[in-house]
């Protein structure tokens, strides 16, 4: 896996430019306290969606248990930062959350990833529910149904932005790497990949664990930013929310997940004043988008810097002609 190449640098430039623009907008007050929350929600959703996209879009495994892994990350980081309310505590918490989630994902993944399609989906859904019930029952550690409150507010938006960029880089580079290509081969045709000597179980499990680990990061940042977590935040509905972002953006497109998370974040801001009607409009929009664009916004294509350049070149050529 080569980390430093032209594409990576190109994207890094985009990421830094994005950060500067956001920083400027926050200091000048264009992004107010309210839009900062929208921004953070979008960033965390990007982390979650990109991770889930690795599982669904690249390895072709249908998981409905993302909220469960997110919950482990959130609770681990939440509990640790309550004891060590420093940045060291936070990073320790994120790390512990990632490790714990990876272990759970490994234990869950090895037997269940043999399952196909919908059976895997329902098994992962079951796992997420079990995780949630365990959290509710560990009253002395997790404070049960009432959840944890007063988690130190440490992950300010720039930190979350950095983690978002890191997550995208990690997943994007993984899919370009040799194990990543093996993973994509599994998605395209599992039997063919296997007969070509690809250890399918291994790569499916790696993708599953990576996806789960990013969910843990998302959960940990969520806990640290919002200060309050409870088991009810990590239900089946949360998994579905992330799944919607992935499908809406295009299964197998990382940039698609990013664009979808941003669009849905703004849609939420826009629909907030509609009160109870909001969810009806949202549902109709969801159905409409799927009917007219079932492959999502970007399909499985990526939005690339070079593609953008080509587009501009073509445009200017047309303009001259």
């Amino acid at each position, binding site marked *: 896996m080569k980390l430093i190449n032209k594409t990576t640098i190109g994207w890094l430039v985009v990421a830094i430019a994005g950060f500067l623009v956001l920083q400027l907008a926050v200091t000048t007050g264009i992004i107010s306290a309210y839009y900062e929350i929208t921004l953070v929600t979008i960033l965390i959703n990007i982390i979650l969606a990109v991770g889930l996209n690795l599982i*669904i879009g690249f390895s072709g495994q*249908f998981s409905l248990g993302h909220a469960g892994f997110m919950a482990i990350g959130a609770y681990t980081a939440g509990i640790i930062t309550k004891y060590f309310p420093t940045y060291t505590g936070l990073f320790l918490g994120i790390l512990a959350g990632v490790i714990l989630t990876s272990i759970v994902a490994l234990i869950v993944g090895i*037997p*269940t990833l*043999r*399952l*196909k*399609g*919908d*059976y895997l*989906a*329902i*098994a992962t*859904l*079951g*796992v997420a*529910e*079990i995780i949630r*019930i*365990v959290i*509710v*029952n560990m009253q002395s550690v997790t404070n049960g149904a009432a959840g944890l409150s007063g988690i130190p507010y440490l992950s300010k938006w720039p930190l979350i932005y950095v983690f978002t960029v890191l997550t995208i880089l990690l997943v994007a580079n993984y899919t370009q790497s040799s194990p990543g290509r093996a993973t994509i081969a599994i998605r395209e045709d599992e*039997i063919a990949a296997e007969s070509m000597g690809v250890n399918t179980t291994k790569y499916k499990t790696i993708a599953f664990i990576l996806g789960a680990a990013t969910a843990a990061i998302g959960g940990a940042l969520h806990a640290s930013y919002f200060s309050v977590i409870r088991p009810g935040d990590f239900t*089946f509905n949360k998994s*579905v929310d992330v*799944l*919607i972002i992935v*499908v*809406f953006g295009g*299964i197998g497109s990382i940039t698609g997940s990013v664009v979808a998370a941003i669009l849905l974040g703004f849609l939420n801001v826009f629909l907030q004043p509609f009160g*109870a*009607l909001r*969810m*009806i409009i*949202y*549902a*109709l929009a*969801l*159905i409409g988008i*799927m*009917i007219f664009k*079932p*492959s*999502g916004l970007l399909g499985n294509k990526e939005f690339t810097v070079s593609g953008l350049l080509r587009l501009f070149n073509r445009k200017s050529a047309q303009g001259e002609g």
Partner: protein
Amino acid sequence: METFFQQMINGLSLGSIYALIALGYTMVYGIIKLINFAHGDIYMVGAFIGYTMIHSFGMGFFPALLTAMALSALLGVLIERIAYKPLRHATRIAVLITAIGVSYLLQNGMLYFYGAEVRSFPQVVDNTLFEVAGLQVSRIQLLIFATTLVLMVLLQFIVQKTKMGKAMRAVSTDSSAAQLMGINVDNVISFTFFLGSALAGAAGVLVGLYYNTIDPMMGVAPGLKAFVAAVLGGIGFIPGAVLGGFTIGIVETLVSAYGNSMIRDAVVYGILILILIIRPAGILGKHVKEKV
């Protein structure tokens, strides 16, 4: 021992409700391989139709039940035609998201028009308790239990013995081949939704009557459980749905009765995962060999 048998009765009556909802799930899945997440909400709409018929139009129980079944069936067909049919050739995940969208729409639509608060269902059937050898069973429990079994047999008959059933099985096995043989695939799929949704509507009215409570979110939890039941029994197989429903009902009851009621759902999901690992196609499901 008496308590144990009483708990088994409790489990069976809870299980028949799951089974009743699971039947519709399993039929739709069998034919177009779609996890119809809106199924639990059609069940909810069915309960509300029954409620409105009895409460506002003064219907008796059976007319209300039939109306609820008919209107739910129409709703199911309408949903299939508008939301699922255009996606016949899209990825299954896209159809799944559409189903979730329909589910949100039904929930929030009912929330908007009927309000969020729970309503009590008009008690139009006398809920007499029968006591046999120290065991209690109520009239509605018997009614639900009998309805589930009758419907299962009836469905099995339709699928196995009628021409439409034959067409359904053909579409389920290979829909493009079925089309080549002159089967109108769209009609068969619509018919499946018609049957499945009618069952969901019936389940809604029966459950509303049994527990005396309906609200717009009532379909979510039983819908999920019923889906688990269908998968457990072997999704796509009609007896599998009933077996899965009874299994979950009994397991839930036994965990609450002899174990810790706090971990009831965890045990249900744990058993589901175990069964899927041991028999990936569910208890009654046939394992389909992969073709290269």
